[in-house]
């Protein structure tokens, strides 16, 4: 069977694939896989359309401006991030999988089928997620995978903290009974 049309691959094989992808990003592109920097810089880029000086005067966004022109910079990682959903979409289409989800089954079991409540929770989760990522200096890709493979002290500290906190939060939200709904 054509592997491209298979719905799921062995997770170990995918892990090896992502590892090999990182060889290429490090060795050829001189970049490390990461996503949250782009997501944090995007609001700055949008505000920069109407108030460029305001953005240039913010010490956080100033880090992401092109040094010479003092302007926002659409870099390698920006194009990586906008291509991610396309890659996932291609994966789904090739395998003929049909998937649409507004309220996950586990969530509906615990908090009901309301889309509004689920979207509000997802929104709040996103806010918390990015604040944590930027505070720590990276997310699951930049810290977790890229930092982990570089044996970075910061990244392994982040990895254990986020995993532990995720487990505690998940059990606080769904309890032991939640385990039978995933």
């Amino acid at each position, binding site marked *: 069977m054509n592997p491209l049309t298979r719905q799921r691959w062995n997770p170990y094989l995918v892990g090896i694939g992502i590892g090999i992808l990182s060889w290429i990003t490090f060795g050829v592109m001189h970049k490390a896989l990461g996503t949250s920097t782009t997501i944090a810089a995007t609001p700055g880029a949008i505000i920069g359309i109407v108030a460029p000086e305001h953005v240039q005067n913010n010490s956080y966004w100033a880090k992401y401006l092109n040094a010479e022109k003092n302007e926002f910079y659409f870099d390698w990682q920006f194009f990586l991030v906008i291509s991610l959903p396309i890659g996932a979409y291609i994966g789904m289409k090739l395998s003929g999988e049909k998937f649409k989800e507004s309220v996950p089954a586990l969530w509906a079991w615990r908090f009901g089928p309301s889309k509004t409540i689920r979207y509000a929770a997802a929104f709040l989760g996103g806010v918390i997620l990015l604040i944590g990522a930027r505070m720590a200096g990276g997310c699951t890709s930049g810290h977790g995978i890229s930092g982990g493979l570089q*044996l970075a002290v910061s990244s392994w500290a982040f990895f254990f903290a986020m995993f532990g906190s995720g487990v505690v939060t998940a059990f606080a939200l769904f309890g032991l009974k939640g385990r039978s709904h995933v």
Partner: protein
Amino acid sequence: MYNFDSPVMIVYGILTGLIFGFLLHKAGVTRYQTILGQFLFKDYTVLKVMLTAIVTGAIGIWGMRSMGMDFPMHIKAATLVPNIVGGLIFGVGMALLGFCPGTGVAAIGDGSRHAIAGLLGMFVGGLIYAYVYPSIMNGFLKSGDLSVDVAGKMTDKITFADVSHLSPWWFIAGLVVISAVVFGLIEKLTGKNPPTTPA
């Protein structure tokens, strides 16, 4: 007002994103059920993918460096208080949203509509952080700073090899052994066919 990376880097970025997104989908980690399944210790796909990627990546990257290939590393500063506090906050957000930033963006592509609300939230989180940053940049963000002497220069962008003055290969070997034990336990726990079914 805006400028772009070189055309080559743009193409590299697009290719990397397409392959990364495709692979995340194939593992099923673009799904809420898979991420929550991991945090609830029901589905171990996330751990399998991440640990295998880290071990494979480490062998290749450190191997290429050992063979004399020269390319920059991208190590983030070891300021342990924000690394750990940020990680704890991140974990809460990840369990609530059901995605991390990368898998969340990818999930929009393969049908998770609530991930769009999550991405909008992430933008707002980035916005809030940009305004909080100036007041924490010199205090909190520098706390727990772990600087060591690396090749005659004090730096906090450090690896376990820098801290211990041991070869990185000791740590890579350790990672291989730990991963093998963890994977062995997982497979024993979940049987031959772990639940990696699409939701």
